């Protein structure tokens, strides 16, 4: 679907992205991960045919962004980092305009707008002015305009930017719904959000891809084998003994002990959870909670970015 080879973009003398190469297959949901200023927005703008590359080759669906941008524009939906909204229009009026602009046949416009409103849960505000909407709604209208013409590829630049926790969960649910309908490329600097909805991650740092793959692949490559968090009632020693007996568990430590509840962290892949639970129950320990380690991706990300920084300093 997307093939990027040696993509470079300069703003004056400053290279926003350097020699970027990656592939994205049809139907994938790809997370584009990087700190602010890493080059995410620039890359997405090139893919969205808003900016032209300085050098390198970018093809989407076999069409080149320099030679055939119009063919690409018909096939993509793009949400920039600030949703491109006209405040004086109503939500449905705005979506109709965008649908017409993106060459939806006149007879289908109404149906497509209704579909987009339903998908993004905007039906109740369809007649309100865009300018009167709260930030969460505006962001959803931004997503709705990107998908109103049923594009094959959706490019969403920080769709969760500035949303509150409840809205972030809603946005995540919305992107999950889009899986299967579109190929989705979603950028973020928030790790947990992106790891939960994406098939694969591209990590970008200072204009270069520093890692790509599934969450597990990234973890394996960096030697961070993942972790499991366990809470048991009392009996810390017995629990430690039981889990250390499992061959795949590399290490186990007590995180905290409070009111008789002991929290442990195990260096082991998350898939090992049933085995850990069984071992603990068999050893007669009361198991209260078992979960995948929450800091996993965060640590991968920090490791990736720190490795680079130290490499550059050296």
């Amino acid at each position, binding site marked *: 679907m997307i093939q990027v080879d040696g993509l470079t973009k300069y703003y004056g003398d400053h290279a926003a992205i350097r020699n970027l190469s990656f592939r994205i297959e049809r139907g994938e949901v790809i997370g584009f991960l990087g700190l602010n200023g890493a080059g995410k927005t620039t890359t997405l703008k090139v893919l969205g045919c808003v900016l032209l590359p300085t050098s390198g080759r970018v093809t989407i669906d076999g069409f080149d962004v320099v030679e055939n941008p119009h063919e690409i524009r018909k096939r993509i939906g793009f949400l920039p980092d600030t949703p491109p909204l006209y*405040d004086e229009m109503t939500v449905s009026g705005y979506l109709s305009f965008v649908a017409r602009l993106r060459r939806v046949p006149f007879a289908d416009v109404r149906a497509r707008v209704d579909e987009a409103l339903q998908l993004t849960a905007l039906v109740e505000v369809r007649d309100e002015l865009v300018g009167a909407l709260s930030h969460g709604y505006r962001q959803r209208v931004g997503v709705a305009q990107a998908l109103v013409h049923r594009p094959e590829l959706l490019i969403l630049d920080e769709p969760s930017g500035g949303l509150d926790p409840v809205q972030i969960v809603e946005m995540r649910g919305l992107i999950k719904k889009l899986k299967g309908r579109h190929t989705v490329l979603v950028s973020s600097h928030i790790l947990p959000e992106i790891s939960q909805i994406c098939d694969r991650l591209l990590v970008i740092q200072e204009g270069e891809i520093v890692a790509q793959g599934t969450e597990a692949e990234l973890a394996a490559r960096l030697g961070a084998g993942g972790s499991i968090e366990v809470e048991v009632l009392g009996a810390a020693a017995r629990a430690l003994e039981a889990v250390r007996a499992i061959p795949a568990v590399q290490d186990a430590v007590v995180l905290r002990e409070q009111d008789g509840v002991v929290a442990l962290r195990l260096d082991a892949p998350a898939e090992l959870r049933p085995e850990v639970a069984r071992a603990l129950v068999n050893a007669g320990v009361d198991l209260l909670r078992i979960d995948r380690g929450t800091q996993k991706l965060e640590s991968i990300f920090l490791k990736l970015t720190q490795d680079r920084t130290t490499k550059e300093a050296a």
Partner: protein
Amino acid sequence: MTAALLIARRELAAYLRTWSGYVIIAAMLLLDGLLFNAFAMGGSSKRSAEVIYQFFYFSSGVTITAAVFLSMRLLAEERQTGTLSLLYSSPVTDAEIVIGKFLSALAFLSILIVLTLYMPLLVLVNGKVSFGHLFAGYLGLLLLGAASVAIGTFGSSLAKNQVLAAILSGVIVVALLVCWMLSSVTDRPFSELFTALALHGKHFQPFGQGIVHVRDVIYYVAVTFVALFAAIRVLEARRWR
């Protein structure tokens, strides 16, 4: 071209739904009316044709000013609010964007031009007005308006915000107007060059007198074309930055 009309229609609706367009029109109508009452109608008694000539003279200045203020938002506002990305990522050409924007501002300016019609009709009450004269004058206002809106569109394509856009377009328009004055203090061939370039002067006066010269029509169409062409190039260049 349908995309250009689509953009023009949306843009015109935006003019009609926000107050700034109405404020500009109201202010310009007031100014035009005051000038008409004080200078065209006032003073020593004169023939109707003379009054109409002066009416077109004042209205042309008002039209230029209104065109600059109406067109300042066209592209600068899109850049300011980030909506230009929507147009850039949609299957429309830069030419369609610029032409759509230009048409909407010209359509809105036409409302102002049509609304000035009450003044020559007032002359009709106590005098004689030739409809040919009115037709020529209004054609001149429309052509002058189109050229000014096109310059405004160009200014708006260059600027990051609306104030800067208005200043840029204003400077270009004033420079073209001043050509008329420069022609009187320079020798040939420069005087002829400045005369030919002047936005108002020699090109508008015949319209005000009820005369349509093909060369004046061509001049205004050419200015419009060049300014829009430049605006399209600016939009294209923005993609390379």
